[in-house]
């Protein structure tokens, strides 16, 4: 006779609590497969833990975003935010869809060039651009977004030296009514710094002012803030047109759109509350269309959204290492996914689902990673079905930032697999090995030998 599926025995005290408006209980369905490929098969073939990216979701997210903007505004260009996920296969999906590249370091710039992005379609942002970086950008005719006056002066010198007119924009920061205000990047709008920088650029005659850029924050739950920001950039662009008879070619609204993740401390899940592409598009394009641009001078709208395009496409699969109990009797489940791989677990309550069928019985569980560090907590408190050692779990919406901010700490970084639109998995980043670490190290001769 075939044996029945096992579930460990549990007992739960019925605590009679009145409904607290802020009570947490999560209901689950198992995630047995991703894009038609069984989770078990993926783990058998590529190991655990494992990052998995759905190419289908990448493309559908991009198309949703593009449609939201292009149906409302005539000239739209997306630029893929490399820092969000710069694994080349991921970048190239977006490049195939028509995205330019948006980079914030010399390293990312080279990565974009290496992927085959034309220099003129690379936007170079960020406060740290060395002279060599800037020269590289000038040589490739890239779009340089100036962050501070020191950079502006360096660029002016380089323009002289190379007898060329670099294409530039300035980054503008402003009060959009949200907190915190990101005023450490770029030039402030309200106190006149931005206008001052624009005057300097126009009067110098050495730089070609092509755009205006802002990036008002991250995980912005308010779409109204974008409307305010777009309105202010439009005012600057119209000011430049009037004073210098010079046309600003594009307005770059940066990124900061939310994904469907739930921020820690939020009551309702992000999937219910966070704005959609249509909501953002409506706010931004309405503000631009209502500004005083004449039809022929309507600037191109550039968007650098990263998280909202890639987060939902990423999963991390893991395996239960052990079940324990705390001294107070609380369930602790240890899995092989730690905060070294999932930086985002510091600010999201990531959705976690078992990868196999289960019953309706659940336990309030602390989900710990494998590191021997007390801070290695994936979920502080989550009601999870009964997991056995060796069972698999799936953490959802991890496509943004984790595969760039992950740490090589205690363990090596796992493989990343992309499932293509036909449901075929491809390794897009190999699992690290000892040589990944040791290969970069050098041991001075006198430290070569020892006896114990």
């Amino acid at each position, binding site marked *: 006779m075939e044996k*029945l*599926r096992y579930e460990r025995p549990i007992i739960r005290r019925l605590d009679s609590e009145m409904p607290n408006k802020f009570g947490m209980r999560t209901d689950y369905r198992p995630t047995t497969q991703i894009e038609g490929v069984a989770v078990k098969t993926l783990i058998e073939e590529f190991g655990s833990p494992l990052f998995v990216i759905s190419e289908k979701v990448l493309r559908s997210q991009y198309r949703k975003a593009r449609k939201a903007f292009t149906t409302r505004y005539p000239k739209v260009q997306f630029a893929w935010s490399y820092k969000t996920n710069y694994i080349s296969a991921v970048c190239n999906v977006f490049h195939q869809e028509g995205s330019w590249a948006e980079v914030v370091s010399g390293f990312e710039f080279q990565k974009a060039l290496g992927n085959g992005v034309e220099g003129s379609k690379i936007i170079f942002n960020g406060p740290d651009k060395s002279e060599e970086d800037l020269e590289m950008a000038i040589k490739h005719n890239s779009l340089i977004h100036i962050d501070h006056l020191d950079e502006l002066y360096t660029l002016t010198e380089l323009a002289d030296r190379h007898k060329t007119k670099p294409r530039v924009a300035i980054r503008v920061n402003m009060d959009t009514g949200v907190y915190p205000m990101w005023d450490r990047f770029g030039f402030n709008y309200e106190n006149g710094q931005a206008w001052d920088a624009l005057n300097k650029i126009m009067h110098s005659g050495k730089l070609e002012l092509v755009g205006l850029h802002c990036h008002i924050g991250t995980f912005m739950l308010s779409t109204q803030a974008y409307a305010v920001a777009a309105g202010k950039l439009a005012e600057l662009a119209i000011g430049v047109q009037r004073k210098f008879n010079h046309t600003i070619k594009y307005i770059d609204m940066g990124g900061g759109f939310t994904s469907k993740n739930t921020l820690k401390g939020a009551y309702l899940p992000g999937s219910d509350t966070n704005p959609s592409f249509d909501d953002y598009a409506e706010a931004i394009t309405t503000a631009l269309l209502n500004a005083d641009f004449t039809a022929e001078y309507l600037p191109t709208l550039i968007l650098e959204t990263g998280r909202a395009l890639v987060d939902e496409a990423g999963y991390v699969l893991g395996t239960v290492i052990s079940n324990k109990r705390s001294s107070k009797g609380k369930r602790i489940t240890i899995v092989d996914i730690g905060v070294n791989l999932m930086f985002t677990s510091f600010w999201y309550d990531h959705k976690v689902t078992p990868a196999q069928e289960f019953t309706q019985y659940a336990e309030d569980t602390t989900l710990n990673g494998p590191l021997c560090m007390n801070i290695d907590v994936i979920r502080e408190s989550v009601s999870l079905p009964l997991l056995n050692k060796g069972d698999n779990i799936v953490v959802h919406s991890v496509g943004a930032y984790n595969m760039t901010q992950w740490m090589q700490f205690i363990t090596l970084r796992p493989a990343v697999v992309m499932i293509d639109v036909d449901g075929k998995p491809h390794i897009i980043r190999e699992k690290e090995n000892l040589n990944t670490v040791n290969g970069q190290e050098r041991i001075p001769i006198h430290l070569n030998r020892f006896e114990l």
Partner: protein
Amino acid sequence: MRIKKNIAISESGFMFNPITGESFTVNPIGTEILQMINDGFESDQIIEAICNKYQVDQHTFDKDLTDFTGMLDHHHLSQHHDKEEA
């Protein structure tokens, strides 16, 4: 180990402790184990019975059983001597 005599266990896995007034729910396999405990099974007999019936190895189940009986102790539902405890 025994379950305290006055504690009622229903087939649906509902337990009521009439002395403390506390109620508990137990999943089906837990109910099955409680029944075996009440029928006087010792742990090795329970392990054998469960491992024969379900897809589980002895080590895993031994550990889970220890955890389960530990929780019965934690909730003061079990007694380890024949004398009645409150």
